Structures are given as C-alpha cells and as structure tokens.
C-alpha cells in the first residue's frame, strides 16, 4: 500500500508541477496572443449600456446590417448590436437571458430571420466548436447551451491549450508567424477588378448557398422555431418590442433559392410572427439593395455604406421604429 501511495504521490507531483508551468506559460501567452474571439469583445463593454433602447440579435447578417452610429452618437440612444457570426437562436436566447437587466422598459429589438435561421449554418464540428467557444468568454456557464467544462478550460481559463501553432508566439522569435508566401495587401481596385467583383460575388453567393443548403433534407427544424418562439416570449415578458426582419441580400444570392423554398420560409416566419403578435418585414429581395453591389461587402452582407442606408430605410418605413423614436427619450447621459 505504501508503494501505491508513493507512486500516486510522484504522479501527482509531476502533474501539479506541469500544471504550474502551464499556468505560467499561459500568463505569457495571454500577453502575446491575438484574440481569436475578438468579435465577442463588445460584450465586455456591455456594462456601459445599462438601459439598452435599440438593439438587434442575429448572425453576421444582423451584425453587418445594423449600424447604430447615427442613433447612438448623434441622437443619444443606447444601442447595442448583439449579433455575431453564425449565431443561432439558442445563443441569442442565452445572451438575452444573461443580460436581461440591461434592457430599457421601452426597448426596440430587431430579430433577423435569415434563410438559414431555421437550420444549422455550421455543419463542420471543428468550426462549430470554434464558434461556440467564444460564448465561454463572456456568458456564465448556466446560460451556455450544452455547457462543456472541457471547452471552458481550454478556451477560457487556459487558452494556451487551444492555441495550436500560435503557441510558438511565447517563444522569442514570435514574429515568424508570417505566411511563407504572404499575399500582397489589396491595392485600389482597377476597373477590371471592379468588373470582376460581380463574378466574385456570384461565386461567394454560390458558396454561401451551398453552405446553407447542402446536405439538409428537413430545412425548417422545430428546435430552431421553438428557440425563436422563446425569444419572442422573452420579449413579451420583459416589455420589449420585437420586430422580425430579413436583411437585404444581393439578387446573386437570393435568386439561388427556389420559389418553393422562399414560399415555405415566408409562411414559417409569418406563422411565428402572427402567433406571437409581432411584425415581420422582409428586405431580402428589395430592389433598392439587391441590385446595388456597392452596398454589399459580399453576396449577403451589407457593407458600412449599405448598413447606413438600411438604417435610414428602417427609420422611414418601420412604424415600430418611428413610434419608438417619437416616444423614447435618449438615455445617453454624457
């Protein structure tokens, strides 16, 4: 028995010593690393928004389409963009639950409904793990869907464990993390390059379409519909005015979807909207956007200019937003 205790003690000493060294290296790594979850950094500033008045949820479509510079800086409303790349409704709900005390009583919330919203945009397990990991940096474990302590340890507490080749940055020659054949920085586009833009967008649209549609037999998953219903119920309980919205896409992207799919999509969204008593606005095929590639960053994401224009359109067309702007006083104190 004595020998077993001795053996166990020796193993523990080595393990604890290794963990101590790991902890020290992790401190160094946190100083030198590039944060892979930088899009989640905005949540570390959410305390600066104690009474959010206008906000949106959603995936990258929402992230790119809602630009609150004018409403926030010039008109003084507290606005927050909760959207992040490939964010699904269950994570939207998790975020709402976590920050339930941050919303003003008369808050207006845009809930984007994209063509892929009722399925899983990401089907690759490693990409899903990467996208999920960012929520561990700011959400409490109790709010994270399918919380896994292992992911929490390797991404949040000891990020050096998930650093991969980035771990060499802790070495003195860390500047070697350049590509062997680094691509040249993009120059100002020539007319030929501009002409090639449409071809590029078309190709990206095809890629996005395949990512969203391939290998998915049953597209409108009940689980996702239930997630969206939970969000709408949350809004109702907390006095938040919810607005369902489909953001603009280029025609290159939206024309890839069949009329049958679009019909089913609209029927699904409209059923959800009418059941919850919330409005739904569809800008996916809006001619003011769909044929103007200069308003887009790619086939289905608005660029800064497009987002600014989109916000103007919303302000002039959406009655809920107009009502809100008439009755709500800006919360900005500075």
């Amino acid at each position, binding site marked *: 028995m004595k020998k*077993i205790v001795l*053996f166990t003690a*020796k193993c523990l000493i*080595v393990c604890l010593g290794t963990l101590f060294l790991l902890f020290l290296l992790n401190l160094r790594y946190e100083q030198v690393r590039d944060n892979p979850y930088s899009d989640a950094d905005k949540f570390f500033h959410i305390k600066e928004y104690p009474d959010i008045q206008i906000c949106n949820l959603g995936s990258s479509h929402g992230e790119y389409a809602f630009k609150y510079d004018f409403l926030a800086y010039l008109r003084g409303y507290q606005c927050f963009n909760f959207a992040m790349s490939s964010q699904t409704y269950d994570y939207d709900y998790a975020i709402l639950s976590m920050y339930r005390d941050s919303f003003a009583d008369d808050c207006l919330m845009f809930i984007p409904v994209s063509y892929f919203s009722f399925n899983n945009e990401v089907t690759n397990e490693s990409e899903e793990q990467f996208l999920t990991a960012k929520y561990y940096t700011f959400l409490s474990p109790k709010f994270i869907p399918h919380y896994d302590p292992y992911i929490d340890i390797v991404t949040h507490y000891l990020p050096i*464990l998930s650093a991969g080749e980035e771990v060499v940055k802790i070495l003195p020659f860390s500047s070697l993390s350049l590509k062997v054949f680094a691509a040249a920085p993009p120059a100002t586009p020539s007319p030929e390059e501009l002409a090639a833009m449409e071809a590029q967008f078309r190709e990206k649209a095809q890629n996005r379409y395949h990512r969203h549609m391939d290998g998915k037999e049953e597209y409108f998953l009940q689980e996702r519909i239930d997630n969206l219903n939970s969000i709408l119920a949350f809004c109702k309980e907390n006095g938040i005015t919810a607005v369902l919205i489909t953001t603009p896409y280029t025609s290159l992207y939206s024309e890839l979807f069949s009329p049958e799919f679009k019909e089913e999509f609209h029927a699904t969204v409209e059923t959800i909207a009418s059941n919850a008593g919330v409005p739904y606005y569809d800008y996916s095929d809006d001619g003011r956007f769909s044929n103007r590639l200069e308003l887009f960053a790619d086939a289905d994401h608005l660029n800064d200019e497009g987002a600014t224009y989109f916000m103007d359109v919303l302000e002039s067309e959406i009655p809920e937003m107009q009502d809100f702007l008439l009755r709500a006083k800006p919360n900005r104190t500075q």
Partner: protein
Amino acid sequence: MIFNSIPFAVFLPIIFILYWTCPAKYRYIFLLAASFYFYMYLNPKYIFFLLGTAAVSYLLALALESATDISRKKLYLFIGILALTGVLALLKYSNFVIEIAGLPSPAIQFMLPVGISFYTFQTLGYLIDIYRGKYSAERHFGYYCLFVSFFPQLLSGPIGRGDMLLPQLKKERSFDLPQASYGIKLMAVGYYKKLVVAGLLAPTVDKVYDNPDSYIGLIYIIATIMFALQIYCDFSGYTDIAIGCAKLFGIELSENFKSPYFSRSIKEFWSRWHISLSTWFRDYLYIPLGGNRVGRFRHCLNLMATFLVSGLWHGAGINYILWGGIHGLYQIMETLPGRNKKGRKGKRNPFWNFFSTFLTFTLVCFAWVFFRADNLSHAWRIISLSFHEIGNLHNYMRTAIICLDMSYAYMIYLCIPVLLLIVYDYASLKMNIITWLSSKKPWVRYPVYMLFLLIILLFSEKGVSTEFYYFQF
C-alpha cells in the same frame, strides 16, 4: 472507451486504485468487469460478439485438449477456425465480396465491433496452440474471458499469446513500483505519439489524400511521408499506451514496434512493425504453409500468400490486398540470390546502412500510398504525378509549399515534435530511453517529465476527439 478521451482519464486512476486495494484473489473479477465496461462504453451490443468469441473458443479448446483422436482434434480445430473466421468474414468482408461480385446490397448491414480482428486472431492463435499441445487449455472461464477481453489490448492489440498472458492474469501479485513507473512513462510516450505527432500530421495528410485531384507534384510525396509517420505514431502510440497501461496492473504485454523506419530491409521492417501480428502470421500461416523449408518457388508463394492475407486482415478493399501484395513482392525480391550477401557485406558500412535504410523507407512509403488512397485511381494519380515538372526544381518545390499553405509558425510547430520523435526512435535503437532517464537524479528527470507533459499539453490537438486509425481494422 478510447485512450485519448476524458472518460478514460477518469476510468484509469479509479480502476488502478481499486484494483490494487482489492484482495488479490478477486482482482481478476474486478479487471474483467472493468474490461467489459471499457468495451461496452463504445457500444453495449459489442459485448455479445466478445462473449460469443470467448465462449466458443473456450469450449473448443477444452474439447481439443480432451480429444485423443487426431482426426477429432482436427475436426474441433476446423470448427473453431470456421466459426471464428466466419463471424469475422461475415461482419468485415461480406460487403466487400458483394461489391466485387456486383451483387445488390443486402437489406441488413452488419455492424463491425471494434477490435474484432484483434481478439479473433488472439483466440485463433490460442486454439491452434492448444491443438499443437504447446500449453494446456485454460479451465477457468473467468480467467479465459479476461485473456480475451483484457482492456488495454482489447481494441488494437498487441495480439497476446496464451502462454504469455494467461499465467500473468492468474498470478496473485503485489504492486511493483518500478514496473508501474515504467508503465506510466511509456503511456506518456504513447500519448505524445498519438496526440501530438499523429494529430499534427493528420490534417495535411487528409487534405491531400481526400482530394488528390486538387494537387500535383511534390505535395504527394510530402503527404505520403507524413502519412507514414502518422500511421506509425497512431498505432505505435496506441500500443505504447496499451503496454504501459497493462504494466500499471502488473501485466507485461508483448512489444509491438521497434523503431521500424530505421530498418535496413523489408524483412527487418516486418520484424519491427506490428510485431505481434507479423509473428502471428509467421507462426500460424507462413510456417504451416512450409515457410522457407521448401523449394524457392513455393517459398515465394508462401511469402506472397502470407502478405496478401495480412493485407486483407487490414481491410476489406482491393487497395489493402495490393498493399499486402507489394510487401510480399518486396520480400520475394529480397530472397533473390545475391541480395542477402550484399546486405551482410554492407552491415558495417555506414553509407550502405544509410542507403539501405533510406531505400527501405522509400519502398514502405510507396506501399503506403495504396494503403491510404481511397481507390486505385487515386493511388495511381499520386504515384504517376509525384514527380510532375521536377525538371523545374524551383517551381516543383514552390508549388508544394503553396499547397501546404503553412505559416513559419506552423512549420516550427510541426517540426519540433517530429524531430523529437525521430531522435527518440533513433536513440531507442541503442538503449532504452525510459530506463536510462529513470536512472538519473530526481532533479534531472523530474523537470524532463514535466517538460514532456507540457509538450503533450501544448502541442496536442484538443479540438475534436479523434479515434485511433487502427480501430477500423
């Protein structure tokens, strides 16, 4: 349960403590229950195949031993071989045969229990040994079941022999600190090979071999060398973990790998690669066929037959059979007159040693192409276009580097563990590194252990849990 999983990291320490605190005479029951749990964790239904194999071979071994008549013994052995290989053939090869014959797919798809190729061969070897009267049949079903299902070796070997393993399982032993200490260090080496080296190489290998039409030239050679290292680290890593794990319970399993890529001939390679399987084929197939004690032509046939069966054992596919056939052909070529003489002459010449090691590695890599490629047309593309545009050396290399799409950081990240492995394997030819390190002062060896664990933690792939490559066989 797989060795590189969190459940196993919890399972092993608990089983270890409980095993050694359990009264010695009941330890086998405990180890048997642990082994069943380990196996059922993957799929509870698998246990029926394991128990069926154990029960059939146990009863036939007793019948074989009690039979006095040689024809009856032969009959029992025949039944045993038929029953055990029949189940294996049905589960593993039926789809392949149907595909080859061009028949429509059956309505029922059989599941292939993990490790069945290994424990079927272990029980087959046991039956043949009993038939030959090499040792007595085990009468205690509990011990026999443990022999078949001992969890460290259950999924991917090493394929055990009854005379080596059964006495150990029955022996009441006390805890041996140096043995356990060696075991845990060997496990760490195994994890290093599997999680660090094989894990790092796998994405590049998969990228090239899963889409060979997208690449051309040197990248094929790089990916093939990477695959050679990946499969070695994957499988020998598993074996090291298995052997080390068994040592924690005071059981010695047979060695399975001895730095095979430093072999100077294909014959030597097979004496260093998957030793438990190659010796199994030697003892139970090659020698019964007549081995080398027959005419030259028959000897060549024996070699070829053994390697073709070895290829088929690895997988139900033409590419695996071809891989076995290529190795059979290599072996036949090595038996050609004058070939051995040269080899012996060159033994003391360092240049010849280097050249023959390089040549052997190249030949082994060539055969791996067939093993890894999805089909023969992919394999042919890889072989025929590996030297495409080699005349323009700069472009030939540049294209490969662009295709690899690696940063300097990733290259460093990849090269450090691979170089460490090569140094470890080369040094292992001269001495036992673990024993050598264990003899050093604590202030020397403990930091080395910690550094090694740190390398495993930092360099291993922790995103998605990957199964061991050899499980599919």
